[in-house]
C-alpha cells in the first residue's frame, strides 16, 4: 500500500539565520499510522509540519500526500494548532462547520456532520457557546472536532496540548487516543513533550537543533490502549533524553536545551 505521506529530503533555511532550520529529512507515514516529531525549540519540527501542511514551502525536496505533490493546504489534510485558533466571533458549531462551508457542502449534510464531530469530543452540550465562554481544554477539543469533521486521511497536530495544564493535558491525550482508534487517520503530531510523544505514537522521530535534523527514530510497539505510567514508556523517554544530551556539544546550548527538555519532559 502507498504511504499516506511521503517526506522526501526536504530542507529549509530561513533568511537572516546562520544554520539551517532543517537539513534534508525523509520519512514516510503509512495510512492510519501515528507519527510524532519531538524535540526542543528550534529543531525544525514545526517547520516540518508547516511544510507537510502546505503552509511553508521547502527550499529543496518534496512532499507527497496521498500520492499527490503538496503545493498548498488541503486535499485530505487537516490541522490542529497549539492555541486552538478558533474564530472568536463564531459559536462552536459554526467554527466546526467552517471547513465544510469552505468546501461548499450543502447545509443539511453539514449539520449532521458537525453534530457528530461535536459528540465525538463531548462538546454537543455547548454547541451554541462562543470560544471565550469555554475553558482551554474545551477549546482545544473543539479545534480537534473542527479538523475531524473534514474526515481527514491525514491529521496534523502542532503542539496541541502544550498550552494546557497537566490534568487537562492527560485527559485530552486519552481522548485523542480513543478518537484516533475510532477514526484511524494518519497523524503527524508535533510536541516537545517526550512522554506524550511516546505515549501516543507508533513511531517517534527525535529531532535536535543547530542544525535541525532527525537524530533517531523510535518504533513504539506497546499495545493500545496504553497507560502513561507504563515503565516501557519511561524507558523510551530516558533513552531520548540521553540521546539529546549526547547530541548537543555546545556547552551553552546544552544548558538551555537541557533545561527545557527536562522541564517539559518530566
Amino acid at each position, binding site marked *: 500500500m502507498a504511504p499516506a505521506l511521503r517526506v522526501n529530503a526536504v530542507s529549509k533555511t530561513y533568511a537572516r539565520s546562520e544554520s539551517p532550520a532543517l537539513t534534508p529529512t525523509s520519512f514516510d507515514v503509512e495510512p492510519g499510522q501515528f507519527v510524532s516529531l519531538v524535540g526542543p525549540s528550534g529543531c525544525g519540527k514545526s517547520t516540518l509540519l508547516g511544510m507537510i*501542511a*502546505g*503552509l511553508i514551502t521547502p527550499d529543496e525536496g518534496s512532499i507527497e500526500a496521498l500520492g499527490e505533490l503538496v503545493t*498548498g*493546504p*488541503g486535499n485530505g*489534510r*487537516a*490541522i490542529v*494548532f497549539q*492555541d486552538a*485558533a478558533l*474564530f*472568536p*466571533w*463564531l459559536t462552536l458549531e459554526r467554527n466546526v462547520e*467552517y*471547513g465544510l*462551508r*469552505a*468546501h461548499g457542502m450543502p447545509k443539511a449534510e453539514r449539520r449532521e456532520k458537525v453534530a457528530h464531530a461535536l459528540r465525538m469530543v463531548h462538546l454537543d452540550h455547548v454547541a451554541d457557546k*462562543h*470560544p*471565550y*465562554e469555554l475553558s482551554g481544554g474545551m477549546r482545544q477539543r473543539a479545534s480537534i472536532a*473542527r479538523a475531524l469533521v*473534514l474526515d481527514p486521511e491525514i491529521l496534523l497536530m502542532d503542539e496541541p496540548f502544550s498550552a494546557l495544564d497537566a490534568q487537562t493535558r492527560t485527559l485530552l491525550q486519552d481522548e485523542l487516543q480513543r478518537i484516533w482508534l475510532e477514526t484511524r487517520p494518519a497523524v503527524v503530531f508535533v510536541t516537545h513533550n517526550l512522554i506524550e510523544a511516546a505515549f501516543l505514537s507508533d513511531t517517534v522521530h527525535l529531532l535536535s537543533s543547530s542544525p535541525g535534523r532527525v537524530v533517531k527514530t523510535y518504533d513504539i510497539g506497546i499495545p493500545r490502549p496504553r497507560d502513561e505510567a507504563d515503565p516501557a514508556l519511561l524507558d523510551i523517554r530516558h533513552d531520548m533524553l540521553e540521546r539529546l544530551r549526547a547530541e548537543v556539544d555546545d556547552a551553552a546550548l546544552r544548558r538551555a536545551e537541557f533545561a527545557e527538555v527536562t522541564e517539559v519532559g518530566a
Partner: protein
Amino acid sequence: MSADRLKSVCWDIVRKGWLLALLMFLWWLVTAAGWADPYKLPSPGHVLSTLGNLFTERALLDDLGATLLRLVEGWAIGVTAGVLLGLITGGSRFLEDGIRPVIAGLQAVPTIAFLPLAILWFGFNGTAVLVITAFGTFKPMAISTYSAMHQVSPTLMMAGRAMGARGLFLQRTLVFPAIVPNLVTGLKLSWSFAWRALMAAEIVVTGAQGLGGVLELGREIGAIDVVIAVILVILVVGIVTEQLFFTRLERWVNRRWGLTGAR
C-alpha cells in the same frame, strides 16, 4: 428600580460628570464674580437663555436635525466606501503599495481644503457638504481598515486556509469578521472626522439649515453667546453618541469577540 440600582446609576453619573460639573461651576464663578468681560465670556445663565431662544425662535431643533441627518448620511457613505477600499487595499500587496501612500497623503490634507472643488463639481448646496463629510469619513476609515487587516492573527489565517478557505470566501468569512473590533475604533475615529468636515463645510455653505450655519451666524453678528450655545449643543450630542452608541457597540463587540473575557 431597586435602591441599589438607583445608587449605582447615581454613582455612574457622578463618576462621569464631575469634570463637566466642575467646569460649569468655574464658568459660573468667573462670570458671577465679575472677573470676566461679559462680551468675551457671557455667563452660563445668559448662554442658556440664548440657547432657549434659539430653540423657540430659530427652531434650532430643525438645524440640529438637518445636521445630524447629513452627518449620519455622510458618515455611513464614507464608512462603507472606506471599508470597501480598505478591504481591497489590504487584500493585495500590489494594490496596497499603490493606494496606501495616496490615502496617507490625502489624510494629511484637511478635508475642508477640498470644499471649493466639491462646490464646483456638486454645486453650492447640501450635496457638496455631504460629499465633504463622506470624504472626511472615508480616509480614516480606509486607513483603519487596511491597518486592521495587517493585525489579523496569522494563526487564524493559516487555520482558515488549511480548512480550504480561499479568495472572496476567506475575505468575507474570516478577514472581515476578524477586523471588526479594530473597525469599531475606526468608526469612532471617523465619526469625529465627519463632525469636523461637516461643521467646516456648513460654515461656508450656509444656505441650508444646520448647526454650522448657526455657528457662523453667531460669529458674523458677533454673538459669542450663540457660538457658545452651539458648541454646548455639539458637545452634548458628542457625549450622548459616545455613551449611548459607541460605548455600547464597543462593549458588545469586545464581549462577542472574547476580548474582555467573560465579563
